[in-house]
């Protein structure tokens, strides 16, 4: 979660019901750095178009949109008779959280593929051709299968693992490829739930994220304040220095795990964010390995078993 917040990476959480996926997501807005003046203006302009600027205030907090899974394609990407902005544009410079990703209409989810890459959406209609900015961070949560208890043999339904394969197939491969980080959110044993909380509070995580972002921006000579998730291929080549043994490791991973070219760049971006969090100047082997592990869920085929 911290890595995703630092680098603006798209995150997919997979886990059984009640494991805390939505709880994690609800805490994300407080971790993110505040909007810059320019970003706040961009966000307010979009909200102004639909007349949602309470008391004329400029909002400094990043938008956090969580549409229900019954949302239609037009509601997500924008459209309708007047081609109004959709949820992805309202989440511009912020976070779009899709809970129960697999329950969304497949067409609606796949419509996010293009804006995720380009950071904008062009709504083309017969009499309209309208561009809205949509540079958002996608956070999604889903169960591993319909009953939700795939990992727990005692509770999983009799159709496992087939039903899980069907359930995961509801989210298309190209869509899964667009998630930089995929994590399994496991259920906690009762002993841990009952013990007193040892987690850090949001404020301290927030400070660490700010520091890591500053550290990252310093690498680009402060030329732009973009997050690692938005680094272009060209910028990756220029700024990320790979040691020979890491090159070999990546090559091996690419062939073994059938990493796409996009996946390759995404691994490097995530690895860079991990390095930033550790304030490490160079990308090291364990950064890349950790980044690779976050794509494990997808790479080992749709499902274990």
């Amino acid at each position, binding site marked *: 979660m911290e890595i995703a917040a630092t680098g603006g990476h798209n995150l997919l959480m997979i886990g059984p019901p009640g494991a805390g996926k939505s709880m994690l997501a609800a805490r994300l807005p407080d971790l993110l750095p505040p909007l810059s003046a320019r970003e706040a203006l961009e966000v307010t302009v979009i909200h102004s178009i639909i007349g*949602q600027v309470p008391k*004329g205030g*400029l909002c400094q907090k990043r938008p956090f949109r969580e549409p229900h899974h019954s949302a239609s394609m037009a509601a997500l990407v924008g459209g309708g008779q007047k081609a109004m902005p959709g949820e992805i544009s309202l989440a511009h410079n912020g976070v779009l959280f899709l809970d129960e990703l697999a329950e969304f209409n497949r067409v609606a989810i796949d419509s996010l593929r293009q804006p995720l890459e380009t950071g904008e959406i062009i709504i083309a209609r017969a009499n309209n051709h309208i561009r809205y900015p949509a540079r958002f961070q996608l956070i999604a949560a889903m169960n591993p299968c319909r009953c939700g208890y795939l990992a727990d043999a005692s509770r999983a339904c009799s159709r496992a693992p087939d039903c899980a394969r069907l359930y995961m197939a509801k989210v298309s491969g190209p869509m899964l490829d667009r998630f930089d980080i995929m994590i399994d959110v496991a259920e906690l044993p009762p002993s841990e739930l009952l013990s007193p909380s040892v987690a850090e509070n949001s404020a301290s995580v927030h400070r660490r994220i700010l520091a890591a972002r500053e550290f990252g921006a310093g690498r680009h000579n402060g030329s732009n304040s973009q997050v690692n998730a938005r680094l272009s291929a060209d910028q990756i080549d220029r700024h990320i220095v790979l040691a020979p043994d890491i090159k070999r490791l990546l090559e091996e991973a690419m062939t073994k795990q059938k990493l796409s070219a996009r996946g390759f760049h995404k691994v490097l971006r995530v690895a860079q964010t991990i390095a930033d969090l550790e304030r490490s100047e160079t990308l090291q082997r364990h950064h890349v390995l950790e980044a690779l592990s976050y794509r494990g869920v997808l790479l080992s085929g749709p499902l274990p078993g």
Partner: protein
Amino acid sequence: MHSHIHTISFRGIDTIPVSVQVHLSNGLPAMAIVGLADKAVGESRERVRAALSSLGLALPAKRIAVNLSPADIVKEGAHFDLPIALGVLVAMGALPQDAVDEHLVLGELSLDGSIQPVSGILPAALCAAERSQRLICPAENGPEAAWGGDIDILAAGSLTELLNHLRGTQLLSPVKSGMLTTPPSGPDMADLRG
């Protein structure tokens, strides 16, 4: 007998300058709005008529043609009420044309002459700043408009207030920009286990 007022139309988050032209001519008394106006704009005829009568002014017994130029793009939204009303007032001779030149006008009218808030004020204010025009907008939208940059804003609560200001009899108070809001913090990470 002729007037023109500047306003805008929206295309996504972009703004397109629109000029509202009003012409009075002899003929059967009627008011026609042309220039690809959608339903909300077409209905503004009734709101303008009622708002003017609330000022004690009747529409002139002439043929009133309102043109929204450029005429080939669709105009949507209720923010054309105020520019149309001002255009009619100028064409009637109730206001001089130079009082409304260099102003960008947006606002929805209610039947009693008060000016209702509209959406899209911030992009409008940015557009006014770019073209170094002054902005006339509903009072409720004033704080939002003030984020648009260094522009003069007239945020009027009613048509009467606006007319008094434009004639110099009673000035509107300057607009303060809205608050920088930070919504209350959500749940804390410390609640999480594991």
